[in-house]
């Protein structure tokens, strides 16, 4: 099994030097710990926060927090050297216009055709949409990082989502605690198994075919 930290570390390996990346709320935020910070030559990884930062840095040192510098989860953050602030229209021009190289998002369900459901559970309390639908529809590439099964044991990787969709056909790759899998249209293709996890276990806990 991959621990949450190992999932985040594995996700970080998917990111190219110089990339602009948006990290969703929850598990995806852990990925930041494994990313190279922006470098003086403009390389490294540049984190975009949809409330209006390109070049988001780590949490501030105790006592340095600024209530007017927050991330999209409304937590206090910092801005890296070379970072910029902008309004929400510019932010979503970046997101929807394909100027974010990769978004790493959490999920409630992912289908074999890449449909993503990550904003509402039927009958559950509606938390809202926020930037999720725009990130899902507009990012150049979508990586999902999630537990392989839900808390109730039901598969999150399914043939077809029955939760309300965030976007259709957008997910490229999924990193779970059991494996790294690609969306294959007729099922999921295993790219990599977590330590001590068998293909049979992945097959058993996936609600869609595992294909070659």
């Amino acid at each position, binding site marked *: 099994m991959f621990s949450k930290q190992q999932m985040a570390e594995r996700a970080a390996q998917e990111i190219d030097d110089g990339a602009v990346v948006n990290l969703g709320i929850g598990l995806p935020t852990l990925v930041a710990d494994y990313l190279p910070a922006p470098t003086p030559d403009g390389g490294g990884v540049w984190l975009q926060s949809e409330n209006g930062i390109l070049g988001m840095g780590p949490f501030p040192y105790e006592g340095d927090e600024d209530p007017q510098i927050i991330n999209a989860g409304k937590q206090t953050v910092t801005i890296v050297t070379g970072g910029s602030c902008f*309004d929400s229209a510019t932010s979503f021009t970046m997101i929807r216009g394909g100027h974010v190289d990769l978004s790493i998002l959490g999920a409630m369900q992912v289908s074999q055709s890449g449909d993503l459901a990550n904003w509402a559970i039927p009958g559950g309390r509606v938390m809202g949409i926020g930037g999720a639908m*725009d990130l899902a529809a*507009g990012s150049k590439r979508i990586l999902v990082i999630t537990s392989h099964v839900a808390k109730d044991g039901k598969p999150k990787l399914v043939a077809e989502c029955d939760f309300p969709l965030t976007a259709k056909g957008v997910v490229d790759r999924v990193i779970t605690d059991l494996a790294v899998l690609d969306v294959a249209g007729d099922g999921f293709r295993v790219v990599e198994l977590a330590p001590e996890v068998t293909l049979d276990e992945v097959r058993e806990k996936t609600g869609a075919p595992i294909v070659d």
Partner: protein
Amino acid sequence: MSKVKASVAEALEGLSDGASIMCGGFGLCGNAEALIAAVAEHGAKDLTLISNNAGNLGKGLAVWLEKGIVGKIICTYVGTNETLHAAMADGSIDVTIIPQGTFVERMRAGGAGIAGFYTPTGVGTVVAEGKEVREFDGREYVLERALKADFALIRAHQADPFGNLRFYRTARNFSPIMATAATTTVVECDELVTLGALDPDDVHLPGSFVQRVVQVTEHENVIEYLKTRPRP
């Protein structure tokens, strides 16, 4: 007639029942705190509130909800806003939740004289239900309409007497766009500077989008989720 007003009460002149009001802020960050508090005391009701979050932790716009002066809300995220959850549960407020990029683009269109636009966001989801979906170059897009309001209540870091504005960090968010989409934009600025103090190249929002300015030097600046790391 000067745009600069002596008080928040004066800055809200003409506000009446049934008004639609855009309020800047990402959660509580960047709220026009004094203007929001003044509307709660004003007496106007049946308001339509257009704002990303409609308050949180019982603060900011959550006070409007508790006072029962809001009839309708257009927002993008509810999250931990228990006041809004309660209003949705008992049906006392008509709440419409839309994607954040669509939310800001609808206001951008409203301010820019564009009636509507086609966006890929929301295609194949509940957001597209009942709306025209059209294919362009092999991809589907949903038609969204422009959004305007009677008032925009926004906070800026600096303003000059013509209403030229500079914002600070992530307090900017939706505010400059809302300013373009409202009939009357009221700015609560931390600092009122003299005309010419802002370099022309450094103005974030030109003064033609601003009708009223009021200086408010004290702000609560609530942190919703304080996160820090230990010093090395």
